[in-house]
């Protein structure tokens, strides 16, 4: 059998990373098959006030919310929102930040210094604080949350790639590529980028977890999607006034957030060990 199977075997030997992968597969399955898996798919938009605040039972496995909607169904549909925010926000931050960091790190000089200073200013404030300012200006919606998170997250990637590019740039294989007449674009995309890809991948995984937490906090503060969107952070905010009686109301979305963020963090840690050749050699030596 091919090499990828051996690689998969090597990856799954890390139990924590495998758990992370399983948690994320669950998230994807929940998001893709939400209409099929949900016991009450209609509950995302319709209310049954007669059923409100029912504790978990055989019909509503996770209980119902203040509108009488089935919490399990709402959480499954909420997985779609979580995935969308995480992938689009982190994706666009990577697409903006990585080329900037790459070019700045490769060429150096005052333009790159200026760029890095601008990213320093962004990084001086916690992401959520700037995101609050932007999302509040734009008004509450998922698109605006994504926009706010991308605007505040790209400098992180620019910084990371800048530092990595600077350290790879003086390696002999880059010099030889330049000596062979490779264009700067070719050197950057074919030689520098593949060599710094592993740290970008690892950071992406951990960044997804962090972004989901920030997005949930924005939802909790009322800056996310307006109701009745089944956004997990907003669901927790709605549940606050029903504590301590309706304990299940806050529990279910909180555990959903926890599982997904844990999944991304474990996967990130696992990928770091998996992709870092130094650690690999060390493990074999033991």
């Amino acid at each position, binding site marked *: 059998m091919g090499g990828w199977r051996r690689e998969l075997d090597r990856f799954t030997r890390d139990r924590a990373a495998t758990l992370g992968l399983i948690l994320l597969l669950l998230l994807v399955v929940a998001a893709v098959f939400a209409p099929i898996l949900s016991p009450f798919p209609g509950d995302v938009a319709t209310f049954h006030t007669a059923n409100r605040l029912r504790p978990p039972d055989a019909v509503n496995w996770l209980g119902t919310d203040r509108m009488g909607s089935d919490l399990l169904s709402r959480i499954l549909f909420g997985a779609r929102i979580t995935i969308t925010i995480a992938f689009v926000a982190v994706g666009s931050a990577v697409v903006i930040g990585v080329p900037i960091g790459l070019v700045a790190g490769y060429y150096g000089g005052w333009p790159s210094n200026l760029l890095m200073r601008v990213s320093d*200013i962004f990084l001086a*404030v916690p992401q959520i604080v700037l995101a609050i300012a932007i999302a*509040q*200006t734009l008004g509450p919606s998922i698109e605006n949350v994504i926009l706010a998170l991308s605007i505040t997250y790209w400098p992180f990637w620019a910084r990371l790639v800048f530092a990595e590019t600077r350290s790879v740039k003086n390696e002999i294989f880059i010099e030889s590529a330049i000596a062979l007449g490779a264009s700067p674009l070719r050197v950057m995309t074919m030689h520098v980028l593949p060599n710094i890809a592993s740290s970008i991948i690892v950071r992406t995984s951990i960044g997804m977890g962090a972004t989901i937490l920030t997005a949930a906090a924005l939802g909790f503060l009322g800056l996310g999607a307006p109701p009745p969107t089944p956004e997990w952070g907003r669901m927790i905010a709605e549940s606050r006034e029903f504590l301590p009686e309706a304990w299940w109301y806050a529990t279910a979305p909180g555990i959903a957030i926890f599982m997904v963020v844990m999944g991304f*963090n474990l996967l990130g840690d696992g990928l770091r060990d998996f992709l870092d050749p130094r650690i690999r050699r060390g493990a074999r030596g033991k």
Partner: protein
Amino acid sequence: MIVSRLVWFVPTLAGLVVIVFLISNVIPTDPVRVLLGENATPQQVEAMRVKLGYDKPLTTQLLRHFQDVLSGNLGVSIYSQRPIWEDLSQRLPATLELTLVAITLAIALGIPLGVMSALKRNSLWDQAVRVLSVAGLAMAAFWLAMLLQFLFSMKLGTAPLNGRIDGFGPTAVTGFMIIDSLIDGDMEALRSAFSHIALPALTLALPAAATIVRFTRAGVLDVINSNFVLYQRAMGMPPGLIVWKYVLRNALISTVTQIGLIFGVLVTNAVVVETVFDWPGIGTYAVQSILQSDHKAIIAFTIWIGALIVVVNLLVDIVHSFIDPRGAR
């Protein structure tokens, strides 16, 4: 390094003011229309635009904005009907007290756990601490806050539900309830202040402690495997003394370096955690301002937090150069 930090201090803050200004002006929403509501006539909108200076070119507006920020004139809060600058400075001690207690708690929890975890590497204890530290970073802070509130305030009744203190509290001198109660010599107030701060501080401390555990563990492992520890061991130095004199010192250095980062995590979480516990700091103020769509207050809050973090990072660099002179060159 310190000098370059000091030199960059002012431009960084100025840059932050510019970025926040641009964000709030380039984004295609009309602040005047938001302020006046949907039923305002075009004449009213125009009059208000002139009154607030929005008819001037962007550069003129930016200059005026700088003047306002420097003179402390950040506008009047819709929420409290008082100058925003006054509101923020009155609420800052509450947030500072909370984050300082939280960071102390996080260090007191994180460093011993991290050191023990590294010394007993791969033991059951180490595995448990690592699982807990990963879990601590995966929990939404506002959810953890509600969980602790549910358990300790609502079910067990061992901690107050919210607020900073019972009754009126001690005479305000520093604005820190714990210190002010000590100045007053009021032990009842001191007890009350501690019981109120316990849960919010613990909520903030747990994710921060998880970060510290990870850094400390990695730092200690590096030191244990270093040549100078091997040398000390070969010289017959007792293991306890090696840990105390060499390993801990180096572990502390790596933690101090990270305090700027940890402070950022704390402030991030403070915004939502303060809301859950009704803690009267600047986080709760920001959330109230969001609910009131009080744009000026949120901009002011952003600038204040930015300034706070830049100052903390500067202090961390200064402290760091004293503990670890290697990087100071």
